[in-house]
């Protein structure tokens, strides 16, 4: 009976996530396009739903929410479905759609899609060779083989993303890197651009007029002489054509120049807007945050290099140590009977209050703030800070894009949720708490990373179809 109820709960949550993935696909990813192949949308929503359900199961595991046996069953079910989708369905469909875009291979799409899939499986299998995955307990065709390979790919992707964020964050946020751009610079560049366009236009007019004259003359000649006239016109090329090819070359060069000027102008405009933004209060706050995070990023890169070179294993990083020290310092002031989690709760609440508030404001902007969130997440190792930051940021990003009016309400609601987390978890010490919370934050890191990755991939695909800066 309880198994049935648990299944109903899981199923409802899966349907909710499915609907959410569907909406996200329609409103964000495919905003400017019409969906013709519904298969893609369905597969996307299914993958999203099952991934979120897995994450939900982890939380239930920590909280001890549902029956153990039903949790185990759902976990296995989820895992099998996800692996099926990830390894069989998605690569096959990617191969199928890629093949159907190539004109030569149109007729035997299925065959070539299967070929692509087998190539993918070969490389996928080869991926696990440097790792000690094969063990006598499990055998070669077990599910552990697949999971471990998927895990390898996932961890590599996460590492790449955080490395990219670590380098991109200082460059984007420190105003030290901003060139000084004035209005007159932009106007001068625009004038050059328009002048180049005028030159292109005048040359094209000459080409058009010459071709028209040639066409009229050529037609007259052909009409009169017929067969012999054609042979004559082959041997004696009219004088206009050499001019034409010369002018055409000039036009090509000028067009390349106009493209470069256009891109430069866009760049300057973007820099000017960034400068204007940095003069506002929000901008100054982010500049300060940017310095703070940049210093931490640099420290992190330095420490990572040292660790690799000297083959060390890092123990705790400065922020956790710093917060532990601060907690102990504050702990002296408090009563002995005051519970630990209230202490950490007060500290982390005050720490995160301004950070989360400003970060959630920033997350109403576009993808650029994603590196900040990622850095904030991965570098501030103190779990409580991460939990607050991440839950607040992830939930509010999901909300803000749709419901801008309820900004204040959702902020208040989220802070209430966050502050009730310690009560739910009933911890006794910081270490005990952090162990459990770290499970949660790993999941939340993954959620926000995936969001950022999806948005970056959408940008890349926009560049491919040319909708970003082009016609």
């Amino acid at each position, binding site marked *: 009976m309880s198994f049935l109820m648990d299944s109903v709960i899981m199923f409802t949550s899966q349907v909710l996530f499915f609907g959410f993935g569907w909406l996200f696909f329609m409103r964000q990813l495919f905003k400017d396009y019409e969906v013709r192949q519904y298969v893609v949308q369905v597969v996307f929503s299914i993958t999203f739903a099952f991934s979120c359900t897995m994450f939900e199961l982890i939380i239930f595991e920590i909280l001890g929410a549902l029956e153990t046996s039903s949790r185990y069953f759902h976990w296995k079910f989820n895992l099998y479905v996800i692996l099926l989708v990830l390894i069989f369905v998605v690569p096959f469909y990617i191969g199928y759609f890629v093949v159907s875009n190539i004109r030569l291979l149109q007729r035997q799409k299925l065959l070539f899609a299967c070929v692509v899939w087998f190539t993918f499986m070969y490389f996928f299998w080869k991926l696990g060779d440097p790792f000690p995955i094969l063990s006598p307990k499990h055998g070669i065709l077990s599910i552990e083989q697949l999971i471990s390979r998927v895990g390898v790919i996932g961890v590599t992707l996460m590492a790449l993303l955080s490395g990219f964020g670590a380098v991109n964050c200082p460059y984007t946020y420190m105003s030290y890197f901003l060139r000084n751009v004035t209005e007159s610079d932009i106007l001068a560049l625009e004038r050059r651009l328009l002048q180049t366009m005028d030159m292109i236009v005048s040359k094209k007019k000459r080409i058009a007029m010459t071709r028209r004259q040639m066409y009229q003359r050529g037609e007259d000649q052909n009409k009169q002489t017929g067969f012999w006239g054609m042979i004559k016109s082959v041997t004696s090329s009219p004088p206009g054509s050499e001019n034409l090819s010369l002018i055409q070359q000039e036009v090509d060069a000028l067009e390349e120049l106009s493209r470069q000027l256009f891109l430069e102008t866009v760049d300057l405009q*973007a820099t000017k807007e960034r400068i204007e933004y940095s003069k506002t209060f929000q901008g100054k706050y982010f500049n300060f945050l940017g310095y703070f995070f940049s210093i931490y990023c640099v420290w992190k890169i330095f420490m990572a290099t040292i660790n690799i070179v000297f083959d060390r294993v890092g123990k705790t990083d400065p922020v956790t140590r710093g917060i532990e020290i601060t907690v102990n310092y504050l702990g002296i002031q408090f009563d002995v009977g005051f519970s630990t989690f209230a202490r950490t709760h007060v500290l982390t609440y005050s720490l995160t209050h301004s950070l989360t508030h400003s970060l959630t404001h920033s997350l109403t902007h576009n993808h650029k703030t994603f590196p900040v969130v990622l850095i904030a997440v991965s570098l501030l190792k103190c779990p409580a800070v991460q939990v607050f930051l991440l839950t607040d940021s992830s939930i509010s990003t999901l909300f803000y894009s749709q419901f801008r009016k309820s900004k204040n309400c959702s902020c208040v609601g989220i802070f209430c949720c966050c502050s009730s987390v310690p009560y739910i978890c009933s911890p006794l010490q910081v270490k005990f708490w952090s162990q459990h919370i770290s499970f949660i934050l790993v999941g939340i890191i993954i959620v926000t990373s995936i969001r950022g990755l999806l948005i970056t991939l959408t940008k890349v695909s926009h560049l491919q179809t040319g909708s970003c800066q082009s*016609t």
Partner: protein
Amino acid sequence: MASLDRVKVLVLGDSGVGKSSLVHLLCQNQVLGNPSWTVGCSVDVRVHDYKEGTPEEKTYYIELWDVGGSVGSTSSLKSTRAVFYNSVNGIVLVHDLTNKKSSQNLYRWSLEALNKDSSPTGVIVSNGDYDREQFADSSVPLLLIGTKFDQIPENKRNDVLTRTAFLSEDFNAEEINLDCTNQRYFAAGTSNAVKLSRFFDKVVEKRYFTRDPSQMTGFTERKRFNFKSVHYD
């Protein structure tokens, strides 16, 4: 031949609808073999005989400015694009017949171009809101072109054509539906060619042969308008 008078026509539309192929077909009378995405703006010139066949025939250069990107691009991109919208004499709106969103975005494209249009007639536009009356007495002639006509399956053709008919009513513009990879759509004597040359004639007329003081009286009679900005040349 001495230099002829110039007429500037914008070609607007979403990415990938076929503006470059269309412009190439119109100006070079050839199908574009290797379409690739255009960065910035590409211009091409068509020699047009105004009032062909009549004694008042005169040849003009029509410059087709193929500007693009998407309506939702960043503001830096939009403000750079606005450079190309100065002194425009006609607008060709291109949409993809297989993609409904591209025709919906045309409203925003036309607003973007007309807001920046600094024509001497002083078109009053309200920021942001789409107002049908704007297009009724706007001084800029519009032409609506739907591309990829060959990719619509037979059974859906009627729905698509009804939809585009509504669209052309909204814009108060003629519409042409074609396939840019096929030259016969603009062959001499077809209705498409006639519509096209009528459009270009209208553009030339508006530019060189009419000075309309009536435009100024027109807007005072309008009942609702948001007086946000007045553009004068």
